[in-house]
């Protein structure tokens, strides 16, 4: 299993680089995760990340992409500009959310 070195912490990642344990997340982790995605975090990124964190805290899953766009007022293309791997594999990963599964 892959590992992520954040400061002196060693965090476990899954095969796709998602945090194995969502509770490990903090802002410092986000920065390190962002480097694996080759993203420099700006305020715009943080808006999305914070939105995802809040949503996840309340609902236990990532939001539907459509809902995320509506709630953040961003277009899909803008999300892709911010997170080249897309809302799921990019934004959710940096925000420390787990991968979505099932028939989706």
């Amino acid at each position, binding site marked *: 299993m892959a590992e992520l070195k954040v400061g002196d912490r060693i965090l476990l990642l899954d095969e796709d680089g998602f945090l194995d344990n969502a509770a490990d997340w903090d802002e410092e982790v986000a920065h390190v995760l962002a480097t694996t995605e080759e993203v420099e975090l700006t305020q715009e990124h943080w808006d999305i990340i914070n939105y995802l964190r809040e949503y996840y805290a309340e609902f236990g899953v990532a939001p539907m992409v459509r809902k995320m766009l509506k709630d953040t007022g961003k277009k899909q293309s803008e999300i892709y500009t911010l997170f080249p791997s897309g809302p799921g594999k990019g934004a959710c990963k940096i925000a420390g959310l787990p991968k979505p599964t099932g*028939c989706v």
Partner: protein
Amino acid sequence: MAKLPKKDELLQHKFDVPKTDWMDTPVEFKPGTYCYGAKAKNLEIVNFPNARDWSPEDEDWKLPEDWKGTIIEGISDYMSKYRSFRLFMDVCVRCGACADKCHFYMGTGDPKNMPVLRAELMRSIYKRYFTTSGKVFGRLAGARDLTEDVIKEWWYYFFQCTECRRCSVFCPYGIDQAEITIMGRELLNLLGLNTDWISGPVANCYIKGNHVGMEPQAIMSNIEFMIDDIETITGKRINPSFNRKGAEILFVAPSGDLFAEPGIFTCMGYLMLFEQLGLDYTMSTYASEGGNFGFFTSNEMAKRLNAKIYAEAKRLGVKWILGGECGHMWRLVNQYMDTWNGPADFLEEPISPITGTKFENAKSTKMVHITEFTADLIYHNKLKLDPSRNDHLRITYHDSCNTSRGMGLLEEPRYIINKVCNNFFEMPEETIREKTLCCGSGSGLNAGENMELRLRGGFPRANAVKYVQENHGVNVLANICALDRASFPSLMDYWVPGVEVMGVHELVANALVMDGEIERTLDLRCEPLPEKGVKSDV
């Protein structure tokens, strides 16, 4: 994650065979063609053996101590439980009729994806340990020893079969590779060998009620979101009910329809239809999954997950159950549910409250397919439809493997599509109905890490879509399966750009004229409808 190859790279394969005998050709784990191993935490949730974190790339798969005995005992056990297993091990004559029927073979050219040879992976072990000829003559009789490499090969190829049953249609003895795959996966699960993509949803579904892992408030939030959109489109605020006792009908949809595009448009379709009918129905957050990844794991797990539907129907005191557009869900409803968790004697034989039609074919399960329900409505003129709203769409229809070869639901969706659209085109006949080609991602293979395999497996289907795209300008691939809706968009983008994926009830709702609705200018995707009479480019 493996990088996606270019189209012509994927198309380089030929239908030929390696120089070495298949027993001497070791399995090669090529990135992009297999899923991650099951995580310990997910197996633990459902109490599966040998839960541990591992990777298929590892040399050591951390098999339990007596793995060999477990497998052989397992084979013996399943032989005594399943006649199909024993029979299918015995009667194959290797005529090869199935060989080129498998979409994975067509897409990879890997001879071990010929159903006959995939079955032989298991059969060779059966012969070695259960037949005299195999014990005495060994390899001369087509038998081989059970080794860790065999287990790895099993894992690779039994999770490279979507249990679509296409081979079974062509087999002169009806040998169903799906049955052998199912047994293979049962055996592998005895050793804790599953894929992450299956074990995750199984664990989710077991605890939270659906594969995606949506908790009740998440479901409600998603529905709320859809209701908002419906209001924007129709001007009507609708009010679906959840977990309501005393409703007439329990509606169960695949959870994909509650969560992701384009499934949510199909879900909006259901909601709009029910609203227009004034149907007395409820949905459940506990039984919020029609699909059943347990079926891709073991018979027992499938039964455990499936039990929720009847249990919830009983708790809520409904009369009967209506099922949404889902593929393997319906194979299970048709062939397994009543046997597992029946008899559903607490329910009534389903009668459509709108038309009074008695659904004779669901007398025992008490569960009706939504296309049966809707086709009946349309046949009795209970819906006001404006098919011209779909005039910008040129539609073809993909039969899901499970509903066509494990059920026989062929005409109902076609009837509906023909009534709600004006431009419908069939794909070549060898690729539809009982000969339909799989999306390539069924039976728990629609993960991201095995995208190359999915694209390869989906190539034959895409090839047929391309045919109608080229000949008829088709731009919509309609279907009645959540997995199709999940897997086809990426498949179409890759092979046949320009073809959108829609559930049948999205088309229905687009054409449905609701009482008191505003003049529609948007379709369910909130895209502007083209002006009347304007046809799409062909």
